[in-house]
């Protein structure tokens, strides 16, 4: 069964390329600073050195910092925020969705109304308010993105649980006297997870984009070097120092694209019917 998953994933070239790219990026962000230097804020040369000159692969920024090093460091924080906020959203969304779907009745109604409340708020506006309120830091950004994205997870989880809770194997578990929580966790959740995993992988990509938007607007954590921060602070100089914005921009595009490919691959692998239906 598991071998089937892997085989179906590997059969999707886009997903494999994406996965390799992501692995390379993560490895690069860990290994490369050992060679390039430890601190992306360090002034390494004159400001505005174009790419390729004086040994700066991607040039220097407006304070003379190495853009290549900053892009690599940006990988760490962008992925950290992506994965962290995905985990936050899944934790909130999967829990509420599963409870709502399994319990049904007024519990379901209540939880779904709360979910809808979050869904109808414009998400970027909500996160701007949240981050402004909590103060700009890595944690507030992670929590903020988690808070605006969990409703999707909750709805998918609820639908899955509702369709599974009356299956025969669940009825069987109920008959032999398993308690509801055990049934939910042991019987239903493992089978409800595949679509959630697919959504979650895509949420990493959208979280990276959201963080970039926040940093671009000056609401990210200014104590850490992220891609959005680099673009946000250097866009004034775009006319004559394009490289400071271009390289973090390329990093965002390629990473988000790679994660999307991997997400598509996961969807195909975990849900073979989708492939057949095409």
């Amino acid at each position, binding site marked *: 069964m598991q071998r089937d998953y892997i085989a179906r994933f590997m059969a999707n070239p886009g997903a494999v390329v994406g996965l390799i790219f992501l692995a390379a990026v993560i490895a690069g962000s860990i290994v490369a600073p050992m060679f390039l230097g430890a601190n992306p*804020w360090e002034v390494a040369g004159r400001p505005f050195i174009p790419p390729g000159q004086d040994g700066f692969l991607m040039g220097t920024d407006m*304070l*003379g910092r190495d853009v290549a090093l900053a892009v690599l460091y940006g990988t760490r924080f962008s992925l950290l925020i992506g994965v962290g906020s995905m985990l936050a959203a899944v934790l909130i969304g999967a829990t509420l969705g599963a409870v709502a779907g399994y319990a049904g009745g007024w519990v379901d109604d209540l939880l779904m109304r709360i979910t809808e409340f979050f869904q109808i708020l414009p998400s970027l506006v909500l996160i701007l308010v949240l981050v402004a309120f909590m103060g700009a830091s890595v944690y507030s950004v992670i929590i903020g993105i988690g808070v605006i994205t969990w409703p999707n997870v909750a709805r998918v989880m609820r639908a899955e649980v509702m369709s599974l809770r009356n299956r025969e194997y669940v009825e069987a578990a109920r008959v032999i006297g398993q308690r509801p929580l055990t049934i939910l966790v042991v019987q239903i959740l493992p089978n409800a997870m595949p679509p959630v995993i697919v959504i979650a992988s895509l949420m990493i990509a959208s979280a990276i984009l959201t963080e970039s938007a926040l940093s671009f607007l*000056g609401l990210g954590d*200014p104590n850490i070097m992220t891609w959005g921060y680099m673009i946000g602070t250097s866009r004034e100089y775009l*006319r004559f120092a394009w490289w400071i914005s271009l390289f973090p921009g390329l990093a965002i595009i390629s990473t988000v694209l790679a994660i999307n490919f991997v997400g598509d691959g996961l969807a195909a692998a975990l849900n073979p019917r989708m492939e057949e239906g095409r």
Partner: protein
Amino acid sequence: MKLTRGMQLTRRQFTALSAAGVATTALPLGGRALAQTHGGTLTAVFNIEPPHINPGLGTSNVIQTAGGKVFQGLFNLDENYEVVPVLAERIEVSDDGIEYTFHLRRNVRWHDGAPFTADDVLFSFEVVPQFHSRTRIALDRVAETVRVDDHTVTLRLNGPYLPFFLATSGVNMAIIPRHIYEGTDYMSNPANVAPIGTGPFRFSEWRRGEYIHLVRNDDYAIDDLPYVDQIYFPMVPDGSQRSISVETGQTNVIIAGAVNLQDQRRFVDSGQFRIIEGAYNAIGATIVMNINLRNPPFDDVRFRKALMHAINRQQIVDNVFFGTAEVMEGPISSATAYFDKSALTTYDYDPQKAIALMDEMGLPPDSSGVRASFRLIVGQNSANAMRTQELVRLHLGAVGLNATLVAVDSMPTRDAQWDFDLLMMIPGQFLDPDIGVSRFYLSSNIVNNFQANTGGYDNPRLDELWAAATAATTAEEAQRHYSEIQRILSEDVPRIWLAEIDQRMLVRNDLQGFGNSPQEGYAEWDGVHFVS
């Protein structure tokens, strides 16, 4: 074109200015009116939206830029710091330097048609100091104001005060209409956002978040002026959009803070714009960090000296200001009167000295190499302050000091509430230490106001010296006290002095008629006209 530092106030000019009886000339303001082309639109883009544009009730770059066209002072200062009459057509100073008599112009009307009289002047002398920290210090010395007649006002000081003209020129002391403001809550008066002044341009429209629009005042006191028909101040928070507004030809006057230094250089190199030298000399901008001396370890002078040694100020000058600044060595900037380098204890960039000082005071690094952690408050709407703090935190980190940035919308609020460890600000010194410097160090000024002595520096000896310096009747005597003040402050380091900034104004080459005044950015611009 090389960007050079603008003109500075020299000792000689300052002494000339302070000599009693300096300003009895009645300069015919209309004299420059050689029939120029009328018409055209000036556009000067703003980086932030001002809360109001009454320069009598608030001082900021954008308030004074827009408000300076609508409101006027009794007089301005020219490039030699000589008095140029504006609303006062003649000023007499008694030989003992105590009595100042202002003879007001008679044909001046407010924009709503009401006549301008001595009552407006007396009212302004009473109200404006409540809102201007720097004007207040000067007007504290006024013992008596006398309304001689409808168009004559006499101020009697309780002693000679050398920087009186600097402190009460138009840029510090705007005259506001009594008939609009008397008996109202000044700050919430609707006229603040639809002002009525005496200047060459009258208020037309304020579209919130978009622009402020001024139009020509056809009843301006000087016939034939101003030349241009209207001025727009669009408000564009994004720096790249401001630069684009210059490139598309919309913006033709680039005020301080509107466009970054690289784009300024590009516009000058392209041959389309020129620099108005010294247009902000009277402001004397500096970038400094305020220290909350109540919070350990900042209460230890060795720690403050360590900060001075740890920060590479030359790198800030080179990489943030690209040479349009100089390292600031002490409390009084080199552009301000009475600067005395020989009195200063100076601090070279030497991280080893910083580390030695912290070792000596018993502040060892912990297991992760951190000796102390604290907050650094920075206003995020200032690109220069944001760039500077990045370098400052880098330099501090190199000696084991972990400065966490707190980027805030309203830095002045944090300053006024004493809610900071370090706080970066860009205050002006306004040419004289008693106008722009004393407010940060006098123990009597430890109050909850922006740009007061919010760090809590309390040194009775310094208070005495400052009182003696401002009561001095000759520049030599004042210099002696100010040198001692600089010796004490540079030894005590109650603030971190980073750099003296040369702000500049650029104008498009088809515009002529800007003056050389040291506050030209805030001037009336009534002589500005287009040439083809």
